């Protein structure tokens, strides 16, 4: 019997080594696997390269991992945000390396790794400083630059529901990088709101097939959904709205 579920988040991050490259899903806070990141901080791995679209928001999740001094290098498209003060401070102090990748190239390089593509030519970034030093080729009259895959030792992602085979469905735009990252890591770890019975996810609607997934752990469900239905009552950070009397 295949059972990829693990009992708790500490089990989900067992074995992550110092110096690892770790993909972390999410676009801003949407889809960020905060509980897994908290467990990673607790687990202690350091000297990490993190691949994620952003470089942390506020003081939780990826921002907390950065604040704990565990990250040597950040690979992302958009580190600078209104609430990225942790990263900003580290960067200005020269305590973190940064590689900026255009967002679509980031997604496609991750996808390429998962799909076994050796490299690909992308039109994005041609003639800009982000393509400096990269091999360029003109194909059918259009300029392209050579981009290599990005793979990882571990992917930490957040989905909505999963089963013991690792089949996953997501919720709305919290899907973002989850499916491509799941395919591009040696070990893919997923936090879900709910582990459901095998067979209860509609095969027509499975977004990430379990072949890409190694560990599934249930975490405290998002508070703005109840019994599968959106109930609201939270702010954009998922915090409960203050009750006005």
């Amino acid at each position, binding site marked *: 019997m295949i059972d990829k579920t693990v009992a708790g988040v500490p089990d989900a991050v067992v074995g992550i080594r110092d110096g690892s490259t770790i993909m972390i899903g999410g*676009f*801003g*806070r*949407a*889809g960020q696997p905060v509980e897994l990141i908290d467990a990673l901080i607790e687990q202690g791995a350091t000297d990490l390269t993190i691949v994620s*679209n952003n470089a942390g928001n506020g003081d939780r999740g990826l921002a907390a991992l950065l604040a704990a001094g565990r990250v040597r290098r950040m690979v992302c*498209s*958009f*580190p*600078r*945000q209104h609430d990225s003060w942790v*990263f*900003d401070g580290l*960067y*200005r102090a020269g305590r973190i390396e*940064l590689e*900026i*990748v*255009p*967002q*679509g*190239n*980031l*997604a*496609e390089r*991750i*996808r390429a790794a998962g799909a076994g593509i050796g490299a690909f030519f*992308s*039109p*994005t*970034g*041609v*003639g*800009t*400083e*982000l393509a400096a030093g990269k091999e360029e080729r003109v194909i059918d009259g259009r*300029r392209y630059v050579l981009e290599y895959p990005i793979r990882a030792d571990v992917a930490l992602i957040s989905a909505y529901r999963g089963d013991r085979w690792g089949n996953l469905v*997501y*919720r*709305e*735009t*919290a*899907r*973002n*990088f*989850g*499916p*491509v990252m799941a395919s591009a890591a040696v070990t893919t770890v997923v936090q879900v709101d709910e582990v459901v019975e095998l067979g209860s996810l509609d095969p027509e609607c499975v*977004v990430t097939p379990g072949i890409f997934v190694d560990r599934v752990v249930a975490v405290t469900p*998002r508070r*703005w959904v109840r019994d599968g239905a*959106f109930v*609201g*009552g*939270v*702010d*954009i*950070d*998922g915090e409960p*709205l203050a009750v006005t009397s």
Partner: protein
Amino acid sequence: MTGLGRAELAQRIARDIPEGSYVNLGIGAPTLVANHLPAGLEIILHTENGLLGMGPAPEPGLVDPDLINAGKQPVTALPGAAYFHHADSFGMMRGGHLDVCVLGAFQVSSSGDLANWSTGAPGAIPAVGGAMDLASGAKNVWVMTDLLTRDGASKLVAECSYPLTGVGCVSRVYTDRAIFDVTPDGFRVRELFGDTTLGELERLTALDLT
């Protein structure tokens, strides 16, 4: 009166988007265009974080943290909407499936080069997001911007001095003073706003306009 205000310009851009178009509105001023799309027309908004059929901001109390736009603000999904992952989303751009994207700009050159992601200022933290992908992928890349910076410098230039976002990618520029098409011969004035004249635009931009 010398030109159009922000909202009027957004309205003017919205008028040029045909029904049936798939459209991406960049972060900042271009998002205003969404407020002016004619209610009766089906124009489908794309947000690069994985949604086609994006609707307006939700009512307070109905904010869904899983449902946001590229600016990470809460949005809604209209009937007929679709979610997809990031590689598919950027495939829609790169693959030329989007009809129009509207972007902000620091500078646009007369050959259609765009600079909108970095001023190159020392010490600034670089952040590109999806700007380069959008610039290189949509069938029509329109820029929405004031003609002049706060210091009175023209944003239309012979050559960009800021780091480029894309080369030869802009097809049209909507400014508060006029609409310009980018042609093989440089900027061509398509429409003047207010009492703006061609001669005045040539003086302000120091460019030969047609």
